[in-house]
């Protein structure tokens, strides 16, 4: 009998352990036994995304754009090439587009169809970004969402929502805080929050503490 793919799809979850921890454990055990995965490679992926790949990467890109006008120009013209200069391309971030917040425009990034997100620059996405409420509302009511996120839009500011439907991954270049003039690139990078690079939060003033 040929494999019945429709049956697999519709009944898979009835056949496997209902506790997700046990379900994943069973999967890993079988894959190890059959030589289909090396658990040390699993560990390496987890460690990389828990310890090394995260929003501090994107923050370095933003800070450099704030202090180096020529880099900023290259970044906005060809995000992929400029991010490659900093060796920050990778899976879910091989093609990068950077969009700039200005006094007239505020950008917000979403993936309504799944959870596309620039991994090498921001790490793995937070739960809210991957969940139905944000995915459904960001395109329809971006101003309401931004209000909830504490983003105050000045009068006359237009919103641009970028729905990541292809392999281009979007990074928002937030506005530099007014009171950050004396700070160098490294200090500026510590101000830049993950949410500000999604367009989902403000960059706090240099005098304030950093939040997610």
């Amino acid at each position, binding site marked *: 009998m040929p494999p019945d*793919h429709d049956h*697999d799809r519709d009944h*898979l979850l009835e*056949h496997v352990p209902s506790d*997700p*921890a046990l379900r*994943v454990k*069973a*999967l*890993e055990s079988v894959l190890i*036994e*059959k*030589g*289909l*995965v*090396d658990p*040390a*490679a*699993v560990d*390496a*992926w*987890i460690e990389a*995304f*828990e310890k090394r790949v995260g929003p501090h990467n994107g923050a370095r890109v933003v800070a450099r754009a704030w202090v180096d006008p020529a880099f900023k120009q290259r970044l906005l013209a060809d995000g992929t090439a400029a991010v490659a200069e900093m060796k920050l*391309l*990778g*899976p879910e971030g*091989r*093609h990068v*587009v950077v969009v700039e917040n200005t006094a007239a425009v505020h950008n917000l990034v979403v993936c*309504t*169809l*799944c959870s596309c997100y620039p991994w*090498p620059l921001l*790490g793995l996405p937070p*739960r*809210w970004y*991957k*969940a*139905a*409420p944000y995915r*459904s*509302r960001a*395109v*329809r009511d*971006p*101003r309401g969402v931004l209000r909830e*996120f504490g983003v105050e839009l000045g009068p006359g500011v*237009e*919103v*641009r*929502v*970028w*729905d*990541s*439907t*292809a*392999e*281009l991954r979007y990074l928002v270049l937030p506005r530099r805080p007014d009171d950050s003039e004396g700070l160098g690139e490294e200090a500026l990078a510590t101000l830049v929050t993950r949410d500000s690079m999604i367009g989902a939060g403000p960059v706090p003033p240099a005098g304030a503490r950093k939040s*997610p």
Partner: protein
Amino acid sequence: MNGIHDMGGMDGLGPILREANEPVFHEAWEARMFGLAQASTHPAGYTVDLFRYLGEQMPAAAYLAQSYYERWYFLTALALLQGGMVTLAELSSGRAAPGFARRADAVKAEAVPSAITGGKDSTRESKAPPRFARGQSVRARNIHPAGHTRLPRYVRGRRGVILRRHGAHVFPDSRAMGGGENPQELYTVAFTARELWGPDAAAGDEIHLDLWESYIEPA
């Protein structure tokens, strides 16, 4: 397919819940699931497009009820089943069936650093000149593919303007279905919020999507 995953513009899905100091993974099994999806040997023909398409085929009620990494379990397990690499009995018991042939080509930990700084280029050589130019008025086609598509329902039939051109990219509707890469020009198309959501939307606001050439027609 017009699945539950295509959520743009829906109401009633609850409040956006943000978490202070959120960990990368909330449970140890989520981390294992992430790592397994990345590091395990994929079935022949497995691509990111198939990964997404398998996730879209989760029954709608389960899609809404299950957490993100539970969905990853589903699509990873489904890919392995369809690729003939595991059986339902094995996934259920956690033990390989007697008499299996052990493979020796799993990705090693030493290969992970280069995988993390690599990434797959989805651009391809253009086979035909782009049909649309920057600034041109277009309409997203009113199509309802039964398989995988990256054309969300909320823009179908709506008018927009070509904002940027990105060259030819692998066409997911084709590759996810085993039809080859079939690369075609990719554009960023700008839609006004009012075109999509009516007169109550804010004047001047826009929604931008990356759309392949066969998703759009002159308007």
